[in-house]
């Protein structure tokens, strides 16, 4: 068994409303998913839905097994598209931010 992975996850742009109105969460997730693969961001998103999200409106966060359109995922201050997207394997103390894009002006 791999060690649990300590992470900081943050929610902004309104997503914090889905997570007990709290922006910053220090969490620890299993080091492997159910198949024994190293935990990646796809697994983290599932884990957050199952373990951290109290709001029943899952569709405000996930759609078709990934984050919904209009949500950016930032890994250590880089867009996850630069890091391998959902396949990025999480490292201890990574900072993962979920940002809903804003449209007001």
């Amino acid at each position, binding site marked *: 068994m791999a060690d649990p992975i300590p992470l900081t996850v943050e929610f902004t742009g309104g997503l914090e409303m889905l997570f007990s109105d709290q922006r910053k969460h220090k969490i620890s997730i299993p080091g492997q998913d159910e198949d024994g693969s190293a935990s990646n961001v796809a697994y983290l998103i599932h884990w957050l839905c199952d373990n951290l999200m109290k709001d029943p409106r899952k569709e405000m966060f996930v759609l078709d097994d990934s984050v919904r359109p*209009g949500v950016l995922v930032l890994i250590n201050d880089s*867009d996850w598209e630069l890091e391998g997207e959902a396949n990025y394997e999480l490292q201890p103390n990574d900072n993962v931010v979920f940002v809903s*894009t804003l*449209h007001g*002006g």
Partner: protein
Amino acid sequence: SQSSEWPLSSTEYQRYGRQMIMPEIGLRGQLQLKKAKVLIVGVGGLGCPAAAYLAGAGVGTLGLMDGDTVEVSNLHRQVAHATGRVGMSKVDSAYEYLYALNPEVNYIRHSFHLSPEHAISVFEQYDIVLDCTDHPTSRYLISDTSVLTSKPLVSASALKTEGQLIVLNDPPKPPGDLFGGPCYRCIFPKPPPAESVLSCGEGGILGPVVGVMGVLQALEAIKVLTRRSEAQGRMTDAEPATAQPVKASLLIFSAFSSPQFRTIKMRSRRADCAACSAKRVVTADSLSSGSLDYIAFCGRTTPVDVL
């Protein structure tokens, strides 16, 4: 009031002297600003401060586009308007304020909402566009039109206590050229579900939050307009000019968090982008003929003229 021997009038030297003595601007940069035509789409919480600082800096032509009228509920954050101008078109109200601040600027008033039919013909008159609107529908339309007309786009948004800013399509290379800056669709290929979109009216907005983002839009526009060459970086003075696809940089602001500001490295152009790639489906014809339904695309339910 210009003499034939000096590139600026003595009034202009006086008015802009404090910025011209900086090497980042100088006479060169001031003349670039004077030559520049800047379009501000949306004269609300973002557009008011953006317009004020661009007018102050002496851009030659400043276009203002908005179809709304001033309401008293705007005034806590839309600081170019005034209580006595409630009911007036936002464009005319802002013009009164801006003309009083700097009458040397040529102001062009577009007192209507942007629509796909005339977007291209308006954008073609300008060098750079600021997206100061407040709905995803207009954000996609403005980005698509910026790509089609090859204009850099300074896009910002704000809601409640947070703001976001990104410079797009910069440099504005032709669609298919991966050395152009990414467009809004490169970053957000799919629009958000309609039910996830909150407006400032619904969600609320703190005045200085949207104000900061608008002022920063003016700053980024000035940086784009006065930089020495296209190859130089946008948000930094330290990046080497290498032949790498240009990545965008997203600034996110959260008034009650610490740190308040974060700078995020974003992607370069998307090879399959619907607007700026070789495989694009957004064309001048499809856009202006109305065959791209921005309203349906963004799942909008309120009338089109709210754009």
